[in-house]
Structure formats: C-alpha cells, structure tokens
C-alpha cells in the first residue's frame, strides 16, 4: 500500500477504474469526453469551469489535470486565478449566506 493517500502517478491511471467494472466506466468516460467538447461553451471555457470546480471540491488530481489543461488551451495566469476566485467566492458565499439563517434564528430567540 502507498504511504500517502494521493500519488500524482495515479492520475494517469484514471482509466484503470474500468478494470473492476468496465461497463459503467465506459459510459462515464464517453460522457466525460462529450461534456468537454466544444459546444454552446468552448472547450477552453469548460476547462476553466473545471479548474474552478476542482478547487471548490479540492481534488488534487483535478487541480493537476485542469491546471495543465487550461494552460494547454491557451489560458493565461490571470484567467486561471480568476477562475479559482470564482470557486472561493462561491464557497465563501455559501457559508456567509447561511448567516441569514443564523440571524433569523437569533432574532427569533432574542428580544
């Protein structure tokens, strides 16, 4: 067994999940490939969204993959960092908006 939970080399083995269950893996990777194609959103825009989501869910594999992918798609550093700030803003906002819930309860309890 590995001594750490995350190994960068495992990212390249993502496709190996088919080894234990091929049918669902095939469906997933087909779907994944379709999602990231140029569509109503460009492949570059989707890659920036993926980078932001990667930071929101704090997935080291995804951060590695989509840092490479956004650079490879011609994004600049400012665009990449703005995407991360979007993730930060949504995460921060998600906590703070619950402050209204706290306030509602507090106001109900207090004179």
């Amino acid at each position, binding site marked *: 067994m590995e001594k750490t939970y995350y190994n960068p080399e495992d990212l390249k083995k993502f496709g190996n999940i088919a080894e234990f269950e091929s049918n669902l893996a095939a469906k997933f990777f087909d779907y994944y490939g379709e999602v990231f194609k140029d569509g109503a959103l460009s492949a570059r825009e989707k890659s920036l969204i993926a980078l932001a989501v990667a930071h929101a869910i704090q997935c080291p594999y995804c951060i590695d993959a989509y840092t490479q992918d956004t*650079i490879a*798609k*011609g994004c600049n*550093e400012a665009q990449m960092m703005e995407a991360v700030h979007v993730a930060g803003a949504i995460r921060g906002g998600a906590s703070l908006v619950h402050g209204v819930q706290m306030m509602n309860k507090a106001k109900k309890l207090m004179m």
Partner: protein
Amino acid sequence: MSIIKSLRSRNSTLASTEKQLEILNCDSFKNGKWQTFREKLIQQNEFPLKPTNIEIFQVNIGYMCNQTCKHCHVDAGPDRKEIMTQETMQQCLDVIAKYNFHTLDITGGAPEMNPNFRWFVSEAKKIGVKEIIVRCNLTIILANQKYNDLPEFFKEHQIRVVSSLPFYNADRTDRQRGTGVFEKSIKALQMLNAVGYGKENSGLILDLVYNPNGAFLPADQKLLEIDFKNELRSHFGIEFNNLLAITNIPISRYLEYLIDSDNFEEYMDLLVRSYNPATVKNVMCRNTISVGWNGNLYDCDFNQMLDLNIDRNAGQHISVFDLEKINNRNIVINQHCFGCTAGSGSSCQGTTI
C-alpha cells in the same frame, strides 16, 4: 532568473551534443516504457522516413544573437561567433538558382547580425526566389542604430518577416526571452506596422511565432491567433498576419530548462503520449533542407544543433549538393523528433495538421 550566457560559454555539460542525445535516449526508451520514434515510424510503415520534395531551403547564417533566450534550441547568444561567410552564402545562392527552390528561409541566431546578411538577401532577390523568410527576433531592430532601418530593408525586398513573440504580455515574454524584451518587441512591431507590415492589402507579411514558455504543448493555433490579435490590437494597436504555434523541442537550453525544473521526464512523456500518426506526412524534414553556418547539410535546424548530419550518401555539404540524392536520402531521426509529431504537429511554419 534569465540565463545570460550560452551553454557553450558556461562550459555546461549540455553544450555537448553527445550528452544531449544520451539524455534524450533515457531509460524509459531503453526499458520499453516508451516506444522510440523509430518504433513509432516502423509501426505505421514510415521507416526510414523519406523526403517528399525540397521546397524550403533554410539557411542558418550564424549563431550570434543579441538575446539569450531561456528556451533557445540554437544555444545562441552574443558570445557565439559561428557565422556564415559570403563564400558559403554564394554556394547557397548557386544551389537555389540551380534548383529553383520556392522558399529561402533565413535564420540564426539573429541573422541580421551577419555582416553579409543584406548582401545575401539582395542577391537572393536578384535570382528570383519567390519567397524569402527572415526569422527576426524583433529586438535586433532596436539593438543598434545600424539596424533601425531593417523594416524599410525588409519592405524593399518584400521579405516575409517571421518573429518570435511567445506571449501577448510582458511577464511571460520576459521570463522566456529576457527582461525588457517584450517592450522592445512591441516597439519593433510598431515600426514594422508603420512601413506596412501586417496591414491588410499591403502584401507585406508579418507572422508571429508562439512557443510555450514552459513544459507544455501549444494551444490550438487558431485560438491563440485570435487571442494575440485581440490583445495586441487593443493594447498596442499592433496588426499581424498569422500566428505560428511551434512546440519546444527538448534540446539545448530548453533541455537544460526541463532538467533544472524537474520537468524532463514529464515533458518527454507528454510528447510520446501525444504522438499523432497523422502528423508524419507533413513533418518539415520532408520538404525542407537545413544548411549550417559552415555549409554542412542537415534534415532540419534541430538536427543541425544536435550535430546530426544528413545521410552520408546524400552528400553532407553545400559544395556537393545534389537534389536527386537529397530527395532519395533517409532522414535522420532521434527522440527529439517527438516534438514535431505531438498533437497538431509542429514545424518552422507552425502546426502541420
């Protein structure tokens, strides 16, 4: 921090081309983890790789340069004294005239630093070469007063100017090419625009070269061109024709960068994984011949920098140039060739598919 001297002048072990080739043929190729370039070609019945027909006659007229870029595959710099003589240039002109090659592609170093550069261009024009490309690093135009009139000289000779600008902002450009290079490049581009280069219907072609400033492949050439055009037009009023996206080949100072930044294995893995069989039919070594400063012949500028001479049976010097032999030669390959077959392919004319 930018490098201020060439590998050669620093006595770096990487100044040895044998050492570079040893590194390129690393354990992952030896132990079968990666297929070699030769194995890839065999797999698609393209070995030995053969030329189609020579259309581009590329001449490297010297390794001297006013810049010392971090990624330079030539290991060029102010300290490099190798320079083509007028006699060798004349031999090139004789060959071009004899075989009527379509394109003369003049490169360096900074080719303009060769004292016979203008003579060479003028003579090439006289013998009727249809297209003359000069690979101009832009900053040379401002490096010294004697170069300030280069835009007019290029215009007078209807040169197609191909210039490196690795990114549309100062930060990324200067990290690769040296502090202040972006600002000077912008001024030089404005000077080229001022005489008509890059302007619609002027007939004066100004192309820019993008190459990644790190261990990654170029993005889609057309998308990058849109970004570059938007950014350069809106911030600096600059116009240009085409953006050529070129992959960095893992040799010389770029190889040094890969090793120093611990990216070599990953980058080679990326090149091998990104091998695209469809690129092979258009690799530039099939329609280009490269002439070194001393008249030696090579399959491409990269082979030149690795001292990989052309097939012995084809004649290895401009003085014995024989097109029939050249067109029948076996092209010399090695693991750096993966740089030209990754993704959308790469050549001195940009992507190949």
